[in-house]
């Protein structure tokens, strides 16, 4: 038997049984993980009354785009909520990346007296889950006039994502050889110029990781948006959908919820599949929350 089996890349024997098990298990698991999401896609093109009815072969495949049309014209102003979510997620990604890049550079390359304390504070803040400080945070943001404000939500989301971002960027700068900066300094370049031109290509993967995580976290964030926003015009997509579900706008139409779910899924799936490399790099930095 050992003469017919080879070894795989982990150093283990590759047998026929294993190959069969892999094919069967892989196919089964593939179905388990894709079918529910694909089903969600399918639901979004069913009319609301078909979704909640016992399946009838006569109507089950009457597909329609009405749910997506209703995002624009229907109750709940879902298209506006999609816009709000997009603004919040993009601004959060941009602000987090800029602040984390600056701080990462500062921690990686500069010696200043407050550095150990400052860095300890960044790490300590990772231990404070925002879910647990929501009440005082709400009161404080209220005092700062940052509730019912997309800016407030951006600042909140940025803070949640910053500690992870700072760690990733500090690592990115630490892995760049110092000689590069030295020669740029000799040529008279400013700190800003050095980061934005000389170091940029080298730290870009790290920055992409930070931006990707911040965008996805802000796009799917629910508890903060639910707490800080009461003005319907400012609702993000998940909050608008919850209001739709709870009947704030009259009878629930599950078709709208199905369509909203698909809109919520698209950026996540597209960004993840396109930028998987950066996503996995972020995981390796060990700062992901469950």
């Amino acid at each position, binding site marked *: 038997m050992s003469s017919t089996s080879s*070894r*795989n890349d*982990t*150093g*283990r024997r590759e047998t026929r049984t294993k190959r069969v098990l892999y094919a069967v298990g*892989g196919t089964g698991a593939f179905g*388990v*993980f894709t079918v*529910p999401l694909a*089903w969600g896609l399918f*639901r979004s093109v069913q009319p609301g009354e078909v979704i*909640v*009815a016992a399946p009838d072969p006569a109507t089950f495949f009457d597909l329609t785009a009405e749910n997506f049309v209703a995002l624009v014209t229907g109750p709940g102003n879902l298209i506006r909520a999609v816009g709000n979510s997009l603004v919040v997620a993009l601004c959060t990604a941009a602000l987090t990346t800029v*602040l984390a890049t*600056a*701080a990462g550079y500062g921690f990686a390359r500069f*010696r*200043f007296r407050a550095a*150990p304390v*400052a*860095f300890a504070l*960044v*790490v*300590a803040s990772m*231990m*404070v*889950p925002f*879910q*647990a*400080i929501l*009440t*005082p*945070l*709400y*009161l*404080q943001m209220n005092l700062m006039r940052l509730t019912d404000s997309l800016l407030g939500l951006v600042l909140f989301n940025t*803070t949640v994502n*910053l500690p992870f971002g700072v760690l990733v960027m*500090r*690592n990115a700068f630490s892995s760049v050889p110092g000689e590069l900066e*030295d020669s740029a300094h000799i040529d008279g370049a400013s700190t800003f110029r050095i980061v934005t031109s000389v170091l940029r290509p080298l730290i870009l993967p790290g920055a992409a990781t930070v931006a990707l995580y911040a965008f*996805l976290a802000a796009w*799917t964030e*629910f*508890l903060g948006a639910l707490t800080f926003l009461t003005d319907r015009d400012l609702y993000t997509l*998940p909050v608008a959908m919850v209001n739709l579900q709870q009947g704030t706008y009259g009878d629930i139409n*599950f078709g709208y*919820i199905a369509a909203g*779910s698909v809109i*919520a899924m698209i950026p*996540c*799936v597209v960004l993840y*599949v396109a930028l998987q490399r950066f996503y*996995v790099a972020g*995981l*390796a*930095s*060990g700062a992901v*929350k*469950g």
Partner: protein
Amino acid sequence: MSAVLSAPAAAPTDAAPARRARSLTHPPRTGLLLVAPALAMIAVFALAPLAFALGISFTNWPLIGEVEFAGLTNYVNIGNDLGFLRAVGYTLLYTAIVTLPILVLGYALAVLVRTRRRGATLLRTVFFLPFVVGLTTLSFIALLEAQPGSGAVNLVLAALGLTDGSTAWLVDGRLATVLISVLVIWGVSGLTMLLLMSGMQAIPREVYESADLDGASWWQQEWRITIPMLRRTIAMSLVISVIGSLLAFTQFYILTSGGPGSATTTVVLHIYKRAFVQLQLGSATALSIVLVVVVALVTALQLRLLRGEE
């Protein structure tokens, strides 16, 4: 990975003369200015609320009206707060239900995709998709499919002959717990898979080759080599999923709002309602402080595990 949590001062390792030369190009003041904005954000929106929380927890703090000092009343009352104690009990139960299945499923998926086989990359991507989509959206999808008579969950169970397809999953505490647990196990095991997979791939192949020569079976290799060598990674993914479960909110808010009654009310959901529905902010904040302490302890454990991997 190993360098992530080491002290910042460890990065430049120059000798003293070189350091003097370097500080000309890297003046300390610039360093402080670079970290100041991020630090200010964290101080204002994370650390200040924490300090504020301690203060509020010693008052009655109504949203409207006069603030009165309440001493330790809010903390003493936790012992009599049946709703909170029930929420703690429920959260622990939920954590106990989902933790092991997430680990086992994550491990099984990692075993499936750890070798370079045809389609392994695709499978990896697919297994991680639900986690990327996020529990908020997954909960809305589950909401549709949990409806009696029309939802896919019931259709599938009825087709298998297990139920008559009219189960109202979300209006019964036990059934809702089962449904939400299955949703979460399916939704987040992809994260455990990725963490374990990178750990497995880092195990040197010689270890398995020599185990093979010694005649160790697949199971023996798994139990005696893979799992012991992954101890830290397994512990870390456990900590991540436990923290996630202790802080669970979204899936419960969307699918059951903590009901029926308070049957599926988690700690965070209870605190949310206490603060923003009953408007008892002092009491809610005292409960939050308890949660902060518990989660900080678990996170400290996580950071220690991470550091231990160097």
